[in-house]
């Protein structure tokens, strides 16, 4: 019985993967580019969702980690002549280091101070990219070389998509697995009632640190992927707008929900493109639509699904055999 269930589950996932793998067959280059952006945005928002949505830490460092990842990959390819794959691998220890630093600070600050500090950290990193001279190529940024493997060049949006599919699927699956276990329960307990968490033998400090590390590594790797998706990175992409962007995705999805996060990533990524028709009013319409969604779904899209879906729907934080 149990084995059957597990087989059923894996078949379900394989079908989903196959469908995702077929996306490039029906997209043109521009649409594929948008799909690629959705994948990157999902990964980085997942990191912020762990830290903010699950663990309740008001740390807005995801944009900084995205930048750290993108610059680590780009600079290691340009300056050190490393391959893209080695650069992407290098992102893990680098973002881990920054995440540890952010975590050490984060454990000492309470919510609003933590928010301000992490935003300042993001802006400081941007300042460093702008004024890094020959090291970071200054305010106009630089082009990222095309990733290659054994002579095969990932020189189109369609080809890049398969890198994203593999990396994002693996990392998301690991993260979601970790959230649907004692770790996810510990995060939520810390978010809702820190004392109750400690009384249940949960090491609050360690779990907060773990949330920072997960946010850092997911954001960093997402940055490494982002760099090749856009092809050219500039410091301005990793500033305040990016922070707000990730924050909107997480809040709109509903704190502590993966389903909501997936939907809101798609909505928020595509929204600017959809309202492009109204040209000069684009920003206004963009903002307006978000205000309307928040008004009608105060607990995020996840809350909306729960309210209106015909069957009972609640994301479980436990593993079911």
């Amino acid at each position, binding site marked *: 019985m149990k084995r059957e269930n597990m087989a059923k589950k894996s078949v379900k996932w394989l079908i989903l993967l196959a469908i995702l793998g077929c996306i490039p067959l029906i997209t043109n280059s521009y649409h594929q580019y948008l799909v690629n952006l959705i994948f990157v945005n999902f990964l980085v928002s997942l990191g912020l969702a762990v830290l903010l949505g699950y663990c309740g830490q008001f740390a807005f460092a995801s944009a900084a980690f995205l930048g750290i990842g993108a610059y680590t990959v780009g600079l290691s390819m340009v300056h050190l002549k490393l391959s893209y794959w080695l650069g992407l691998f290098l992102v893990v220890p680098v973002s881990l280091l920054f995440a540890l630093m952010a975590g050490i600070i984060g454990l000492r600050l309470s919510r609003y101070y933590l928010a301000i500090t992490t935003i300042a950290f993001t802006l400081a990193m941007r300042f460093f990219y702008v004024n890094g001279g020959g090291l970071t190529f200054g305010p106009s940024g630089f082009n990222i070389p095309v990733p290659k493997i054994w002579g095969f060049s990932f020189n189109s949006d369609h080809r890049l998509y398969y890198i994203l599919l593999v990396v994002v699927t693996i990392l998301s699956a*690991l993260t979601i697995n970790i959230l649907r276990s004692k770790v996810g329960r*510990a995060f939520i307990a810390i978010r809702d009632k820190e004392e109750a968490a400690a009384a249940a033998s949960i090491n609050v400090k360690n779990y907060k640190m773990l949330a920072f590390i997960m946010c850092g590594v997911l954001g960093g790797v997402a940055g490494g992927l982002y760099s090749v998706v856009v092809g050219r990175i500039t410091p301005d992409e990793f500033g305040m707008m990016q922070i707000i962007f990730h924050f909107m995705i997480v809040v709109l999805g509903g704190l502590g929900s993966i389903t909501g996060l997936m939907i809101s990533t798609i909505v928020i990524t595509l929204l600017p493109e959809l309202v492009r028709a109204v040209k000069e009013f684009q920003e206004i319409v963009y903002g307006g639509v978000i205000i309307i969604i928040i008004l009608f779904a105060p607990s995020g899209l996840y809350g909306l699904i729960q309210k209106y879906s015909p069957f009972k729907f609640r994301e479980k934080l436990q593993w079911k055999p």
Partner: protein
Amino acid sequence: METLKRADRSNKFFHVDEVTVKFGGITALKRVSIEVGKNEIRGLIGPNGAGKTTLFNAITRFIPLVSGNIFYQGQDITPLKPHEIARMGIIRTFQKRGIVDSLTALENVMTGFHRLMEDVHLWDIGLRLKKFREAEEEGYHRALEALEAVGLHGVADQGADVLSFGQQTLVEIARALVSKPKLLLLDEPAAGLSATEREHVMEILKALPSKQGVSLIITDHIIDFVMEVCENLTVLNFGEKLEEGSASYIRNHPDVLDAYFGRG
């Protein structure tokens, strides 16, 4: 002072030694000592503000001590942190209920199982290895059993925020039970319960020492409940230990009556 009943005090299972706690200029606990034997159910009573919850907070190290020590199974646990105290099997509940609102009743109880999942590592969880699956499955079934034991199996998958105060109390007791405690500190477990629920909880608590080898310290304002469940009582008043002894001895003690009702 009449000798305490039944408890085997020779091994000094749990010993609070002259603990003092201050909040600013106010002395909340003044050199309070308590000894609890293995398998003993100790009641902790006293008027409002006597320091009952403060003593719980001091034992579980949520607040700093000015002086004094806490010994548990011969070990000085004073320097430990709250989660380390819990890890040793000293589990507490909260007067204002330590329920995690966004989790279901079942998930709340499963957080109690956290203590017994220490050796399940991140890679076991991420890759869904056997060790994780076995521990999680055991936790799931144990949590269901615990909910059933307190009569709440019907609401296992409901969000804890929609439960009544009484049900939240029961969930918290179930969470405490599932973590296999050795010493259980219950802060007003009978508050907000219906008469039948109270009766039910009473039976569960009374059976704990003999069935699972648990010692308990219970505070409550419902004196009948405390008298019924506890063998021995410690009375606190204005942060000091007023009296100590068997339930029947305390019930008729003039000083205790004074502390509760004032001198007539």
